[in-house]
């Protein structure tokens, strides 16, 4: 009988512990005091630990921006490195509040996985990289029939690769690993001729190779890869917060609000749009309606800077990657980065 009681008590404890914490992610984050953010295991420029062990990168700065908006401090983030296989279950199970891990926005991820994408923070496309020293004379992806191709498993990249070779009647040998580091090692050791992933990823990976100059990225872009942050379905408030954090960063770039001048602009600007966004408009409840303090945009820009600053610092001209803005320039400057107005 004693054992029976123990069993019943045990079952009760389990039942209590497993009641799912869904809905108000904002309250959870506030009461916990930290944002739990899922990032890449190590993709230079996007998410990787620096030599002091702190996470830095383009995706990391999005986590920091959300933490700044919600908690007022960009450093209050717990990073969970996830590989391609783990990332979705980590978000579904509630292990992380936000997935900012160069993840492509697709219909099935919206529907079958139960996610909502909060926008696009990087417009990318899939490309191919080869070792030009070993494979002289190859200048186009259409010459790759018969090649061994390294690819990370469980990605949209893997599917596009199959489609592209099938559409062009070419053959290839897939070499598939689940972890990015394993794909990199296999490519470096010559196990495959070609590395395929998003072009931004190729530039980043090329930097980590022993002789980056030997490798070239072929000109073909074979897919659309809109990369963006994802959250769980069923919590519209949290989705709004992440969505408008990203939008605020883009709008700040449009208006010339930078990390350096944000305080000054908040105090002295007479431009009504700037005053409204920075929470200085009389009687405005824009921040409070999101469940955030009124100076949430000031906190974001003070913490990480505007979209352009984050881009240039991590992957653009201020970084070893030197990726041009291209599609990711503002709509007013030839790109397609466009944010709905904050009003």
């Amino acid at each position, binding site marked *: 009988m004693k054992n029976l009681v123990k069993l019943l008590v045990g079952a009760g404890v389990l039942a209590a512990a497993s009641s799912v914490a869904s809905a108000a992610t904002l309250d959870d984050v506030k009461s916990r005091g930290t944002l739990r953010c899922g990032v890449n295991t190590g993709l230079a420029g996007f998410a990787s630990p620096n030599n002091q062990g702190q996470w830095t990168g383009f995706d990391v700065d999005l986590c920091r921006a959300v933490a700044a908006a919600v908690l007022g401090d960009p450093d209050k983030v717990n990073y969970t490195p996830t590989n391609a296989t783990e990332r979705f*279950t980590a978000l579904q199970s509630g292990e992380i509040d936000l997935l900012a891990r160069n993840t492509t926005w697709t219909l099935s991820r919206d529907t079958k*996985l139960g996610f909502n994408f909060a926008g696009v923070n990087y417009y990318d496309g899939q490309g191919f990289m080869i070792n030009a020293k070993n494979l002289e004379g190859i200048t186009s992806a259409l010459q790759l*029939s018969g*090649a061994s191709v390294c690819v990370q498993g469980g990605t949209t990249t*893997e599917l596009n690769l*199959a489609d592209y070779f099938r559409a062009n009647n070419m053959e290839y040998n897939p070499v*598939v690993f689940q972890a990015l580091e394993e794909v990199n090692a296999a490519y470096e050791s010559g196990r495959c*001729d070609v590395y395929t992933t998003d072009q931004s990823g190729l530039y980043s990976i090329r930097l980590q190779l022993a002789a980056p100059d030997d490798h070239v990225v072929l000109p073909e872009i074979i897919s659309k890869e809109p990369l963006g942050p994802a959250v769980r379905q069923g919590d519209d408030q949290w989705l709004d917060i992440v969505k408008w954090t990203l939008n605020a960063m883009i709008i700040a770039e449009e208006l010339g609000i930078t990390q350096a001048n944000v305080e000054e602009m908040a105090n002295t600007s007479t431009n009504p749009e700037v005053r409204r966004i920075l929470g200085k408009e009389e009687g405005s409840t824009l921040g409070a309606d999101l469940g955030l303090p009124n100076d949430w945009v000031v906190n974001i820009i003070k913490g990480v800077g505007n979209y352009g600053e984050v881009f240039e610092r991590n992957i653009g001209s201020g970084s070893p990657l030197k990726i041009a803005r291209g599609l990711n320039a503002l709509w007013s400057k030839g790109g397609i980065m466009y944010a709905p107005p904050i009003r």
Partner: protein
Amino acid sequence: MATDSTHLPGPAATSRSSALNNPQVRSIIAQVVLVVLLALFIWWIVGNTTDNLRRQNIASGFGFLDARAGFDVAQSLIPYGSNSLYRQAFLVGLLNTLLVAVTGIITASIIGFLVGVGRLSRNWLIRQICMVYVEVFRNIPPLLVIFFIYLGVLSALPGARDSLEVGIPLGIQTPFGLIGWDDTIGFNAWLNNRGFFIPRPVFNEGSWLILAGLIAGLVMSVLVYRWARARQMATGEQFPVLRTSILLILGLPLLAYFLAGMPVDVDVPVKGNFNLTGGVQVKPEFLSLYLALSLYTASFIAEIVRAGILGVSRGQTEAAYALGVRAGPTLRLIIIPQAMRIIIPPLTSQYLNLTKNSSLAVAIGYPDLVQIGQTAMNQSGQAIEVVAIWMVVYLTISLTTSVFMNWFNNRMSLVER
């Protein structure tokens, strides 16, 4: 209460006190309660899971198995392409798992048996070498053995353009210069960091005669074996069965080959744009997993074999020698059959371990059930279903192996009498 106790046999039926005090009744009640609680627990877990999945709008169910997979797989025993279904992708993974498990089990058994017997050898050097082998492989985690062979051995081979030809060298390079000729008798087999390339036979019209020759050879060998045994029982005369069988099994197909006008061509690997093309490519992922699992499990099998042989009492050997039986037949006919009774049960566990360890394939990208399942899980988003498939499949493979080995064990113990 009293009516309950009348249904129970034994002391309960005669007991006058409350049935609750009867240990048998109490144990039955406790078990019933436990089973009910367990069923409730499982029902609650399943309900809770489906509830939460629905609330989070996550798709569930096994319907995705009939959808187009969309991804390619590096190595497949059946025709498979990106247009195939998830169901077929899982089948490809299962067959790849079985391939590495079966080849691994055969190789591990052979190596393990040789090393196990070698550890009991009278030759000091053989004994020590076998001991070092066992101690090295037994004490390293299998994942490290896999990594060592994959990254340390196969990745270090030259690239496709400088492939090594496998053959017999006619000369040897010494510090004093070349001895012999600077040439090699090649088998058209090549080794590079993309794997091991061997020629592939292409069977043209008329090849059925070779198969027929092989079958005839096998049947005749069995007949010869039976006849020779019957004759030995009757007259005591021995017949060289092994040599005759080899001659029959190899000779008849060879004869058929020439009679049919040499219908077999060989598809030789040749250098292509990126890699060697043609022939059979044994990929390094398979090679390293197969070698690592074989070498690792062989060290355990060696110890089991040694224990089995030592478990047969010394008197058996002495009795055989006293009757004038030589050392070879003593081992083959007297010691090993008795040792098998001790060897087979733990051997079964090792076979199961090897099969389950094959899921370490995921670390080096060999497309086994787990690796393909992970890709499928991520492309379809059906994590729970994929994990359920894994569990059911591995359970089925393991139980089938157990059933077979138990049958084999029973057979061996009958032979003993």
